[in-house]
């Protein structure tokens, strides 16, 4: 498989993630879509790393995984807080702040 192939796959994954963020209404699902986007980034990183000299890309992808984990931790905590406050995690219900 060529680099372009990987990149296309990565782009598709990223786009799916974006669409997920845009279309999903459940906060958890949005969070998961973002994880998908991050994984698309990882894929691109690793692919680049595979086709060009140096291992930086693979190292970076580990960093990204760490970032994803940290985000998930904070994000889920916030979701829990919202769920406790509002008894819902549907982001479309979260419109107290607007205008």
């Amino acid at each position, binding site marked *: 498989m060529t*680099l372009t192939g990987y*990149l296309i796959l*990565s782009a598709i994954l*990223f786009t799916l*993630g*974006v669409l997920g*963020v845009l279309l999903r209404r459940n*906060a958890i699902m*949005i*969070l998961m879509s*973002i994880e998908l*986007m*991050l994984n*698309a*980034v990882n894929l*691109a*990183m690793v*692919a*680049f790393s595979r086709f*060009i*000299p*140096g291992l*930086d*890309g693979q190292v*970076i992808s580990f*960093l*990204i995984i760490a*970032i994803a984990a*940290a*985000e998930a931790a*904070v*994000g889920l*905590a*916030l*979701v829990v*807080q*919202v769920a406790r*406050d*509002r008894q819902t995690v549907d*982001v479309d219900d*979260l419109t*107290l*702040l*607007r*205008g």
Partner: protein
Amino acid sequence: MFEGLYSWSAVAPALVVLATALVVMMTDLFVEPGNRIVPWLTIAGLFAGLVVSISMWGTEEVAFSGAWKIGAFSIYFYCIFIVAAIITIFFSMSHEERRGRFPGEYWSLIPFSVVGMMVMASAADLITLIIGLETMSLCAYVMVGLNRGDKRSSEGALKYFLLGAFASAFLLYGTAFIYGSVITTRFAEITVFVSAHSNAIPFNLQVGAILLLVGLGFKVAAVPFHMWAPDAYQAAPTPVTGFMATAIKAAGFAAIVKIFGLMLATSALVLQDLIWWLALLSMIVGNFAAVMQMNLKRMLAYSSIAHVGYLLTAIVGSDPGVSLQGGTGVLFYLVSYALMTLGAFGVLIIIGGGEDRRETLVDMTGLASKSPGLALAMTIFMVSMSGIPPTIGFFGKFYVFGAAVQSGYTGLAVIGILTSVVGVFYYLRVVVNMYMKPAEKSFVPWRRSRISDITLGVLAAAVLYIGIFPQSLLDLARSAFKSLF
């Protein structure tokens, strides 16, 4: 390649602040809740970090194999971050007196996020930058949600978080593309690569640059990536809002100056035109939407979007090969913006009462007769934000629009200045309410805290003094920007 690996002094300021954060977090476990030792300890640590930072002014050192570079630029920003953090803590203490205690971890979150910012300001590598940015952002998400029991607070935090993570993904994806086309993530090498390939920029690099723009545009709340800002600003406890509007924004601009003002500031990339649009939209949307806001925090959020527009105008006009005006202007403006915004939020914190939130325009009514000093200070901040002399806000605006005019973006400057007339309208509406309307009967007197009063006084004085004698700060900003080359 490894010459800077062991340069501990290069990371000393960040380490001091990091240590502060850790110590504060630990201390918090052992003292009873609400003990004033915790914030004061934070302030002491931050102050130590400030001293260390200033003492390193004029030196230039590299660490972590070139992924970290400390110089005048970084130190300039360190000072902004730390001073903003210290002032925020001062205000937080008064805020606590009226609105209930912050949880203990709040005091460590601030230094933690400052560490993240410092990492961003000294990053010489995209990855370093992203790590710093994430550190900062994660702290910020949490801080926004600290108004426990307030439905808005958690809503705002979640929105901020979801969109922030979304933006991070763009940023990372952009990094991946840049890495793929330049084979490295070091700024210096990317700069070299870009100038070497200025007549044939690889497509991947261009895509990467745009994705970076999206990511960083989000962090500084540039239109159309701004929509989190009003909600998050309104949701956050007021001191946090002030902190976000100043320190976090400054950190974002540290990155933008490095990347778009310098590394990718070449006509071969069409970025200049794209940022032109962002600047334009930011100024328009920020200023216009602010007109409708009755909640002052929300108004200031939109106004901060407008100010991002002004800053981006300088970035558009930034061509380091020709003049330092753009970069210097951004650096100067960030300080001026920090001073007046912190001041404005400081006033909001002081008038903010116990049960009711007291953060709307109506709550300012008659302030002039209740508390003339506070009203005067607020007037100074509002006038400064309007960009009317003799205030620092005027000189900052003068300088950033000067950068745009100098590079031939007069049209943008004209539109910008016209939108800022709209800005004057809503800033002075605050003055109208304070001075020109009779005082509300139900105005509950508040306890004054000397710390906030002094802080506000110093801020107001600085706004005026630097407004009239801007030369020293200008020199600092210029040498800071110069140190990037």
